[in-house]
């Protein structure tokens, strides 16, 4: 995954705008209004400072589009950046039906004590990014986490109930 250069602009009295160039040319962006309204922007090709398309989204519609765009890509993106230089690794694991962590909250796993952060949880087709401490885990959830490779192994054992 290449790094995308996102431009952030504060709009006084309106909200904040994020936009980035597309590999195929052109530029798209989103304005997040203080009111929760989202504007989806497509910049014009012959006048790159001008939005030729500006669609209004409600908060719910924006979330739906985000899920449609993001959910299927998270796993694919992970495959490319399995381990960073410096020992930080990303891994994910799907919870088995008999694991001891099923029905438990994220907090009660105590993963932060072994140095692991949960980045997101995939459930069915939905991505729950940065899950809250009281998020309850269920079998077949896929947990995406980061940390040192050996700590990730410890965390998996914790969740399975087989060690640590």
């Amino acid at each position: 995954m290449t790094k995308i250069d996102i431009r952030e602009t504060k709009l006084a009295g309106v909200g904040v705008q994020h936009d980035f160039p597309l590999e195929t040319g052109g530029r798209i962006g989103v304005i997040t209004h203080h009111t929760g309204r989202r504007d989806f922007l497509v910049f014009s090709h012959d006048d790159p400072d001008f939005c030729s398309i500006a669609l209004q989204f409600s908060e719910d519609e924006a979330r739906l589009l985000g899920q449609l765009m993001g959910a299927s890509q998270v796993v694919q993106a992970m495959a490319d950046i399995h381990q960073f230089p410096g020992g930080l690794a990303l891994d994910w694991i799907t919870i088995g039906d008999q694991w001891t962590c099923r029905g438990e909250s994220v907090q009660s796993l105590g993963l932060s004590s072994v140095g692991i952060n949960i980045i997101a949880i995939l459930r069915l087709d939905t991505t729950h990014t940065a899950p809250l401490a009281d998020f309850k885990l269920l079998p077949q959830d896929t947990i995406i986490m980061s940390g040192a490779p050996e700590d990730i192994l410890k965390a998996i054992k914790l969740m399975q109930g087989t060690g640590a």
Partner: protein
Amino acid sequence: MTFNSFLAAGSAEIAPLFVELGAIFFTLAVVARVAARIGLSPIPFFLLAGLLFGDGGLIPIELAEPFIQIGSEIGVILLLFMLGLEYSGDELIGNLKKGLFAGFLDLFLNFMPGLIFGFLLGWEIVPALLLGGVTYISSSGIISKLLSDLGWLGNRETPTILSILVFEDLVMAVYLPLMTVLLIGTGLATGLISLSVALITVSVIAFVVLRFGSHISRAVSSRSDEIVLLSVMGVMLLVGGIAQQLEVSAAVGAFLFGIALSEPINERVHEIISPLKDLFAAIFFVFFGLQIVPSELPPVLLIAAALALTTGITKLLTGIFAARRAGVSTRGQRRTGTMLMIRGEFSIVIAGLATSAEINAPELAPLTAAYVLIMAIIGPIFIRMLTPKATAGTPRILQSTPIAIAQPTQETS
């Protein structure tokens, strides 16, 4: 007077009063509908409606005038309060640091023409300073609505436009108290004292607002819309009244109170107060029109046109310079200048200061009305001319850009 005799006395007058008020609001509804149909702001049309009802107009009103007058004062306060509500203190300070150059350029290029025209008309310094304010201030109400309606909020030049508008609003917070003091027209010594009191008051209110904004927000919060409405109106009028008493101008007090209300309560207050603002702001524009005798307009039309031409060009230049500095392309620079050309509600607020004071420049009100009529109507028309033929959302644009669109796959074709 007992309650019954009060009713008896009242009912004789209340019927024609209701008819007058009803006729005014109904007329405003009709002209607002016409304005919306042709895609223009209703503000210039409200002014025209005011001319229609005033002295020498078609349908002179009598009984409703006291109500309209008080209503218009509340309208000014609500206009400034809602403006303050749009911004948070942090946003204002952050913006001030960034937009200083463009802000002062705008102030110089657009205040000067009004001031000079005032002197050329043989006015004294105070009315000339007022005319400077009239030509300086762009209409943030009309402009932000246009930006949103046209889908231009995401354009590269928009942060520049918004930052200039914010700067102008802050200048208003100093300019309005200054003019309030000058209009009272006391001697130099007492004038300086009142001015210092006014500026210290503004600073104290501004400090309290920025420091304790979250406490103030919490104080007006409630589950009930009714309580929020009453709290906001109560505090707004109290702050405005105290500010006015200290010769700061009630509107500036309300503006600062608006800034004090921060997330999450500000969105709700916006929703609750918006209809009230629409009602009283419309009354304010009508009242301004009411006080102008229609026969005063034709003599100032030529001056208004010259003023419009001059300050149209100076705003265009302001926009071009400011946007170029921000690295915006030529077309974006032109859009910035044209957008800023639009004058509206705040030009009238400034000229309205003079109607309650005695100043020796009878042309100020009709000149401002004619000027705002021109600027509020031609500005949006120019904007539409700059808009590419195919506007936001039409599929034609998608096809003309090389952005990858889903290719028809084997299965679907």
